Every structure is written in C-alpha cells, then in structure tokens.
C-alpha cells in the first residue's frame, strides 16, 4: 500500500507550514517521514540541504528537529520540569561517566539545562505546575508541556502533529496563540492538522493532501477557495454521511 506518493513539500525557513487533508490523506505518514519514525521507500527528505532519510530519529533531533506528538508522549514518574529538561538532550553532551562522577561539564550543563527548561515552561505558561507529575495534567497542558520540551532543545524546525485534536475551545485558543507567537519569533514549524480552521488562521503556507497526493498548495486565503480542496472535504463528508 502506498500512503504518500510523489508528495513534494518545501518548508521555507521562518514559515509556519500547514499540512491538511481528510482522514487517510497521508498526513501522519508524511509527518513521520520527517521525524524519522518511518523511512521512505523512494524519495528523499532534505533538512537545510542535507539528506536525512537514513538518519535515525535521535540524530535528526541533534540537527535541530523537534517533535510534538499527537498522542501525547510525556515521561511517567518525572515532573513537568524534568520532562521539559529531557528536551535539551539533543544539544547537550554530558556522558554516563561524567554524570556518575559529577566531573567535567556535568554541573555547568545541568545548570544550563535547568534554566532553559524553566524558560521554556515560562514561555508556554506552565511555571506554576513545574513540580507536578506530568501525567497528572489535563490534556491541553500536556500538549503545552510537549511544546516546552521541544523548545528546550532550541529547535530549528518544530514538527506539530495534530496539536489541537481533543482540546476544548479555550485550550485550543491558548495553543493557537502560542504558535502565533513562535511564528512571529521566526521559528520554522510544520503543522499537520485535521482542523482546517485552526491551520488557516495560523499558517503562512498550506499543502493539502488527499489519498497520498498533493491536491493544492498556497497561502491560506487561496486554499480556502480552492475547488479541489472543497471537493475533497465535501467528498469525505458525503462518504461518512
């Protein structure tokens, strides 16, 4: 089975690039080709001009690619702050031996990681819950913790997989505001989302997928009027009706 076929998508530096499409369009497949969770059978993923299709996920993280998963994946038994501190793993180097003996860069890096994590929590407005167990937070805050964890790694590209799904209106608005701020600061983001309204309000450019192919791309205003896009979404509604 071919989930995505001949899909070419280009995310320019500093833009928030949205990917939308009906269920089964191949959004998640495309997303995980970039994260490294899946490998392409043909084609190539380039990051800042470098072919990364063969790099494992943790090496991609080191290049500056950070992820916020759709199914929230926070670390159990760790506080919110510790969860966010893990995000700095990609850009720090303290080894087992150094950490066990507390020598070398251990203390310096530890201080730096902690302050970066505190700043990231401040950034997403979760400072008051820094000491709580991550799994005890409501879904909206867990999503925000994932974003803070990603930011703690100082990413050059932030991948967001359906960050708004399952959120109530208020939480959705808060998250949307956060992404708008990050966009204004020049962070490059790839936003994969089922909710067309959420994406068109935020994205600077949008790619629309349907059944594994690109059916439209361009700025949000054009996408909303595109007959192929309307047909794809209407078609799905007709099917599910």
């Amino acid at each position, binding site marked *: 089975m071919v989930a995505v076929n001949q899909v070419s998508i280009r995310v320019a530096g500093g833009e928030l690039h949205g990917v939308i499409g009906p269920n089964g369009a191949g959004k998640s497949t495309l997303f995980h080709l970039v*994260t*490294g*969770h899946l490998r392409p059978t043909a084609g190539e993923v380039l990051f800042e001009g470098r072919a990364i299709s063969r790099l*494992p*996920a*943790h090496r991609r*993280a*080191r290049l500056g690619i*950070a*992820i916020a*998963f759709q199914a929230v*994946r*926070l*670390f*159990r*038994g*760790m*506080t919110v702050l*510790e969860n966010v*501190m*893990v*995000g*700095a*793993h*990609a*850009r*720090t180097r*303290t*080894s*087992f031996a150094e*950490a*066990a*003996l*507390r020598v070398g860069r*251990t203390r310096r*890096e*530890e201080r730096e*990681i902690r302050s970066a994590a505190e700043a990231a929590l401040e950034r997403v407005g979760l400072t008051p819950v820094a*000491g*709580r*167990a991550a799994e*005890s937070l409501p879904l909206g805050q867990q999503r925000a913790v994932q974003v803070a*964890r990603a930011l703690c*790694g100082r990413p050059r590209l932030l991948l967001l997989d359906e960050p708004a799904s399952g959120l109530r209106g208020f939480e959705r608005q808060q998250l949307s505001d956060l992404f708008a701020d990050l966009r204004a600061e020049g962070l490059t983001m790839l936003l994969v989302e089922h909710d067309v309204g959420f994406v068109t309000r935020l994205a600077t450019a949008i790619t629309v997928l349907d059944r594994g192919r690109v059916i439209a791309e361009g700025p949000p205003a054009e996408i909303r009027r595109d007959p192929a896009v309307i047909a794809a979404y209407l078609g799905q509604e007709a099917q599910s009706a």
Partner: protein
Amino acid sequence: MRLGFWLGLAAAVGSLLLPLLLYDAELTIYVFIGLSIIVVAGLNLLYGFAGQVSLGQGAFYAIGAYCAGILARRGIPPLAALLLAPVLTAAVAVVVGLPVLRLRGHYLAFATLAFQLIVLSIAGQFRELTGGDTGLTGIPDLTVAGVGFPLERRAFGYAYLTWVLTALALLLVHNLVASRPGRGLRALATSEAAARGSGVPVGRYKLQVFALAAAFAGLAGGVYAFFLSYIAPGSFPILLSIQFLVMSAVGGVAVVWGPVLGAVLIYILAQVLQTIGSQPGMPLHAPAELNYAVYGLVLILIMLLLPEGIVPALRSAVASGRLRSPGGAAPGMAAGPGGAPVPPPARRQ
C-alpha cells in the same frame, strides 16, 4: 528532601559503626546484604529507572565471581582481579545485550533468565577453567600490594570493603539519575519514540545501562569470590536472580534508597525461611521451595498494595502528613534524592 538527607546520613553512620558490634557470623550477613545492595542498585538503574526487566542479574554476579576467582588463582594480583571483574562482566553484558535488548518486557525477562541458565551450564562444563560442578576452590584472599586483612579480623575487613563499595554504588546511582543521561534513561522507560525525538540514542543507552548494571553485579560477585574463597554453579541459582528482583520491587523501583531497604528486608526474610525450612523433619528441598513460594507471595502483595515499593509509599505518607499539618507549607511535589517524584496527594480545586 531534608528528611531524606538526615535518614541517609543516619543509615550511613549507623551502618559504618555496626560492624564494631558484630561477631564474624553476623559480619558475614552484613557483607552479603551489602553485596546484594550493590547488585540491586545496578538492577534499579536498569529496571527501576530505565524500565528494562532482567531476571538474570545472578548470571552477572556469577561472571564477576568467576572472573575474579579464575584470575586470582592464576597469579593475577587479587586487587587487579577484583577490579577486572566488573570490567569483564560489563564486556560480556555488551555482547549479550546487543541482541537481547531488542526484546521488551517479559520477553527480555525470559531472555535474561535463559542467559543465566547458559552461564550456569558453561560454569558446570568447562572443568579446567571453572572447576566444573564441584566449583573453584582455593581462591586466594584479597591483598593490596601483598598486604591482606589479618586473619582474625578478616570478616571485619570485608565488611568495611563492602561498605565503601556499597556507598560508592549508591552515590553513582544518585548522581546519575538526576543528570542528562539519567533523565534519558528514565524517559526511554515510558516512550522510546519520544525519547528518540528528544535526541536520546535509545539503543545505545539501553546497552550502556545494561552494562553498568552488569558491572555492579560483577563487582559484588568479585568480592563474594574472595570473601568465600570458594564458588560453584550452585552458588548462583535462578533463585538468586529472583531474589534480586524482589529486593528491587520491595524497596522501591526508581528511588535511590530502595535497594537498601529491599535488600535488608528480603535478606532477613530469606534467613528466616532458611531456618524454618531446615528444621528437623523438613524435606531436603524445603528451604528453596519455601523461598520461591514466599517470594511469589511477596511480589503479589507488593504489586497489589504498594506497586511502587516501600520507600516511595513512605515518602508520600510523609508528604501527605506535611500537607495536613496546619500552617505547614504544602509541597507541590517532593523530589527525592534521586529526583524521583512523589505524586502529590489528590487536591480538590
């Protein structure tokens, strides 16, 4: 946190003074408990923090013991043999871990169990090297530059050697868990995908912690070989590995002090069962079977009543006590010495 510090200090000072009051037979128990703590501290890193179950720590204990014993009998200075034991054990763990750590959960538990059976079988077969089923006798005593413990104070010397190594093991774990690699290990226990996404090299980290836990067991095994001066395959039954795992679960997984409490309680329990099982009239296999049965029961009770073990349960009891006391500042989340969080009691908002 402050309470934990004082309790830790009290335990350290108390255990440091304790050998002064003990006779040789009791000092032997003291040494065995210390060696168990070292093994379980390593297992706690592997199982408690990184979430990888091993039912074969007894195998690494055996490998450490055999390495130290064989090398020392062949003329390697005993101290060098003791230091080589954890290194060689870790090397074996790397070779075994490469294929085995691809497995998860109970598959990993079965594979490590099978590994121990293989190790025991090898130890029983290669007679020239290991002494076969009759074991390795005449392991020389531990000496440093030719100087050993005076014979009448021998157990006393091993007690303090064990104390120092145990303290070092706990210190290493304490430092590690609240650090970058420690958080990486704790992260991959929940979600390998999210850990990878944050830059944690999951495969390499699992291998490193597997080797480190094996090195702890290998070091303890080395001390065991010198202390008893005799080892055989029968010294390292599967029951020993189960005992280590029960110690880890009872004391508390993912807390630095868990291994101490777990090892002390289970060791005492094992002694009691041994005494009961070897009463006149009891069948020959009674001690072992009694141990298996009671360990099973203990595991079930712990999983049902205190799934995180005794130390975390005590900690949250203390934390909720503080919450209830009037005027006491409510701690949001008490992070223990290992940075292991205590879930706050449910708060109504």
